[in-house]
């Protein structure tokens, strides 16, 4: 029986070559892309899921009330974690963690590695297994470190570097450490990512901040004891907060902040470690959003839907050719169930073939996909039993519906009508609905593409307030003192006429090739109010190098010796001070007993953070006690490549052992919206594929419609209709569907994109033209697809078409 079915199925597929090819190509493409997209999304969703204790691990954060609303603070002070563990019940393990880079020196090798300053309990909380060395206590004492296999290989040329001694550059000193454990490499889907773990006490600011509750620079993670709920824990921290944050609470009350619903000004809360990757804090409350991965999954699903809609439409339409077979089989004793199974098996055949091809193709495309979408995902991420089972069920469900529905329609036909070739189904209803839905999806994806690309162009072209085309920023990853390096670079490049200016700062603009980003925020009292500002330490010539505009006063200058007590602020900070009349008269005492700092200059606001963020208050200091981490070098607009090479050569003279990873600021800015670019690539490819698939379907439908109406076309022509009027007649129906799709799709797309753009402080205006463009494009493509076929039919000799009767 099955053999017979398969034989019939095979011959049928061969007979309808065009449609079979269209279906298999469409479904294969859809499955390929869906597999790749799903892989990417599932990879994102798998972030931090590998920790055995993931359900009881949390990051501690504080939500504090300000007069402008609430704000979230993730950074904690050094005494915080030990005190919390001591005073609040329910904590099984607690650990401080501070991510940074550290220069590791072994013999004549100098490597800049991603480092994490940790308490040893970190390894009891998180699952980062030890391969060699002390498994239970990877950090034996204050002078031992743990490194990953990868780092061990890089440093020592062997995976087992246990017992070796390296020197780390911490602050301005070099200290010896011995390797006491080798960790398995950190998985790609981990939020924490480091090559080397160093005992927390070794951080250069540890000693000075040991008892300081006001300096906060690291994250705190904890594992709750079994049976302790987050609410219980948060409730039991209330007394702790009252005790340790007393001053802070008082000053917030004084500044006019409104307490939260529980009447509190500072509340400690827990963020589940599984949510870490998806949490955003921009609005002052923690928002956990997995929208990107789910959007990608959604696109994968939509693409499969489009391909399946094609399949259903073509199968129903082709069913007409098989009415005789259905009737005959019924006459010979086939019952409904048997016919259903037969037709369903045929569908299954096509689906299985497409899925297998899809898997092969997605494997082949894996590498380019990973580069294009900037993803670390692999098929291995999909190999968990739950996902495989879900995938299998999903595919079964899809084949069951897409293959089963036409099968059901066909098997239900009345025997006699089938024999006579009569089809009494209102089939065009479903067909039209499916085509409309396809084009709704296509229009949403196209307008999404246009808006995403528009936003990216907007962010790329936006005037950020500094010169990003002519400035190279170099992470200072060498051994020498940073001020010395910048001075040496200045000297080295002095004679070069294309090098205009050299400066430095402790923070980068955009995201450099070192991938680091950091923020320093300082709070202080000014005229009885608590103010907050971003802080940066800069070198001389900072404004000159970056083309920052001075609004009032002056920048730091070598001619004034007291500039280490001077501040340059941006306009947003002027507003924060509320000294718009005469900002240059502002004097600040940061600590009650210390000296006064005075504002010497005001610079125009510039985007010192990501383009998506509002411009916050910023204060620049010139203070040689604080290191610089980046050098900025401005080059002339001509000979840019030569200048870059000259800078590189200068760097190699100054820091021969450190890798040069300088980059132009516009590259850095581009890197900050990598996520948007990835999403735009995905949506663009999704919409191109969606359109291609919809057109395959539309083309097939137009073939069938033309075939169905051959006689009508013939008669009309004999009566005297022109080619154009017949083409219009045949094309009109399809264009109407695209029109309906436009009306349905636009509001959905508008709503979704409007919400998405709200996430950006600076965004492109959501103009109607995006949607009109998308609709027009969809209509044009549909017209071309259907038109080619219909013109041919309309131009055919009517005698021929009438002869088919």
């Amino acid at each position, binding site marked *: 029986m099955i053999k*017979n079915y398969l*034989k019939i199925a095979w011959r049928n597929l061969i007979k309808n070559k065009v449609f079979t090819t269209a279906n298999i190509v469409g479904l294969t493409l859809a499955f390929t892309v869906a597999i790749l997209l799903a892989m990417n999304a599932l990879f994102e969703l798998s972030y931090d899921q590998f920790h055995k204790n993931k359900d009881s691990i949390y990051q501690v954060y504080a939500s504090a009330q300000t007069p402008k609303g609430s704000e979230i603070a993730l950074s904690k002070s050094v005494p915080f974690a030990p005190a919390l563990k001591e005073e609040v019940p329910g904590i099984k393990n607690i650990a401080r963690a501070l991510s940074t880079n550290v220069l590791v020196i072994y013999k004549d090798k100098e490597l800049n590695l991603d480092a994490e300053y940790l308490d040893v309990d970190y390894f009891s909380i998180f699952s980062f297994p030890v391969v060699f060395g002390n498994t239970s206590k990877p950090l034996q004492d204050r002078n031992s470190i743990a490194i990953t296999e990868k780092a061990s290989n890089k440093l020592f040329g062997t995976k087992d570097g246990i017992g070796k001694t390296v020197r780390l550059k911490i602050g301005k000193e070099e200290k010896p450490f011995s390797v006491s454990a080798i960790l398995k490499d950190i998985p790609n889907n981990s939020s924490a990512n480091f090559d080397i773990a160093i005992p927390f006490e070794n951080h250069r600011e540890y000693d000075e901040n040991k008892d300081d509750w006001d300096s906060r620079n690291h994250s705190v993670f904890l594992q709750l004891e079994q049976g302790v709920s987050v609410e219980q824990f948060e409730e039991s921290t209330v007394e702790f907060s009252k005790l340790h944050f007393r001053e802070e609470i008082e000053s917030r009350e004084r500044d006019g902040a409104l307490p939260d619903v529980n009447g509190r000004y500072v509340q400690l809360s827990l963020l589940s470690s599984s949510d870490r990757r998806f949490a955003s804090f921009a609005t002052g409350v923690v928002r956990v959003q997995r929208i990107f991965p789910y959007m990608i999954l959604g696109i994968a699903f939509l693409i499969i839907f489009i391909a399946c809609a094609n399949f259903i439409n073509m199968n129903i339409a082709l069913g007409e050719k098989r009415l005789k077979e259905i009737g005959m089989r019924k*006459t010979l004793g*086939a*019952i409904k169930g*048997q016919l259903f199974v037969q037709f369903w098996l045929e569908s299954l055949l096509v689906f299985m073939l497409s899925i297998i091809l899809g898997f092969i193709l997605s494997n082949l495309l894996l590498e380019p996909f990973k580069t294009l979408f900037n993803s670390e995902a692999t098929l291995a991420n999909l190999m968990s039993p739950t996902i495989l089972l879900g995938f299998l069920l999903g595919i079964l469900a899809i084949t069951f519906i897409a293959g089963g529905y036409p099968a059901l329609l066909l098997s239900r036909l009345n025997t006699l009508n089938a*024999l006579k070739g009569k089809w009494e189904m209102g089939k065009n209803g479903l067909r039209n609905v499916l085509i409309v839905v396809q084009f709704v999806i296509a229009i949403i994806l196209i307008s999404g593409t246009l808006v995403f690309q528009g936003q990216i162009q907007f962010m790329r072209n936006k005037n950020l307030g500094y010169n990003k085309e002519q400035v190279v920023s170099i992470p200072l990853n060498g051994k020498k003192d940073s001020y010395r390096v910048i001075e040496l670079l200045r000297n080295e490049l002095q004679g070069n006429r294309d090098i205009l200016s050299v400066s430095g700062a402790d923070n980068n603009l955009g995201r450099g090739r070192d991938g680091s980003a950091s923020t320093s925020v300082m709070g202080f009292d000014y005229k009885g109010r608590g103010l907050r500002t971003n802080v940066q330490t800069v070198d001389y010539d900072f404004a000159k190098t970056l083309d920052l505009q001075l609004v009032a006063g002056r920048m730091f200058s070598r001619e004034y010796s007291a500039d280490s007590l001077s501040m340059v602020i941006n306009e947003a900070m002027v507003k924060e001070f509320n000294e718009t009349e005469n900002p240059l008269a502002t004097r600040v005492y940061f600590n009650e007993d210390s000296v006064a700092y005075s504002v010497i200059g005001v610079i125009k606001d510039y985007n010192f953070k990501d383009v998506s963020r509002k411009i916050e208050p910023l204060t620049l200091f010139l203070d040689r006690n604080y290191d610089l981490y980046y050098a900025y070098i401005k080059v002339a607009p001509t000979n840019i490549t030569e200048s870059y090479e000259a800078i590189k050569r200068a760097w190699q003279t100054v820091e021969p052992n450190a890798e040069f990873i300088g980059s132009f600021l516009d590259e850095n800015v581009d890197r900050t919206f990598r996520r948007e670019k990835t999403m735009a690539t995905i949506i663009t490819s999704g919409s191109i594929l969606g359109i291609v698939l919809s057109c395959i379907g539309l083309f097939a439908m137009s073939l069938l419609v033309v075939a169905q109406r051959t006689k009508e076309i013939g008669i009309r022509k004999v009566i005297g209709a022109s080619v154009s009027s017949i083409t219009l007649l045949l094309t009109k129906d399809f264009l109407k569907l695209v029109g309906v799709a436009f009306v349905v799709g636009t509001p959905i797309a508008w709503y979704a994109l409007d919400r998405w753009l709200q996430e950006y402080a600076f965004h492109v205006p959501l103009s109607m033209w995006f949607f009109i463009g998308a609709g027009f494009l969809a209509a044009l493509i549909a017209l071309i697809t259907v038109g080619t076929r219909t013109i041919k039919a309309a131009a055919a000799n009517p005698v021929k078409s009438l002869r088919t009767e």
Partner: protein
Amino acid sequence: MLLQLKNIFKWVNSGGQRVFLLKDINLEINEGEFISVMGPSGSGKSTLLNVIGMLDTFDEGEYNFLDESVHNLKEKHRSNLYKEYIGFVFQSYHLLDDLTVQENLEMPLLYKKFKGSERKAMVADMLDRFNIVGKKDLFPSQLSGGQQQLVGVARALIANPKLILADEPTGNLNSQQSEEIMELFKKLNEEDGVTIIQVTHSEKNAAYGSRIINLLDGRKV
């Protein structure tokens, strides 16, 4: 007695009026009969045949086939009944274009759950009996009309039905071909005892039968 129709009515509603397709048909058919149904176009010949073949329903009356009351049966049982006992032959053959002669013959057996080896034997037997062994791997489109109908008859016979229903079996054939088919029917009826009901326009073909039923506007005359 093979089957019995009692006061069978069948109608459609057209413009608020009942148009009768079959009107008060009473008919008894015994095993071994060869019946020709005649009448002008639209007199209800094919409808009657379809009702007898259980492909079509009726609105009033009783229909007993062997000992079963067809009017009380569910579709599935009806389908079991006719696939067991009835074979159909059509004017336009209705062979499946995608299957070879051999496979076309095999198909009714698939729906009757015969084993593979049995099916092979039965098909081989039938090919032999109709002298079409040489054509077993050809597709219907490669055969002449007469040969196609030969396969059609063979397919109707393969599961040893008690009754063969033939709706203008020679309608698409030339005179020589139709004579061959009619001779075949006669032989089947006389030698194998198969009951045959045929619908025909031709007096000559009708003469092969043992009894003629004339229909006019849905009534037996």
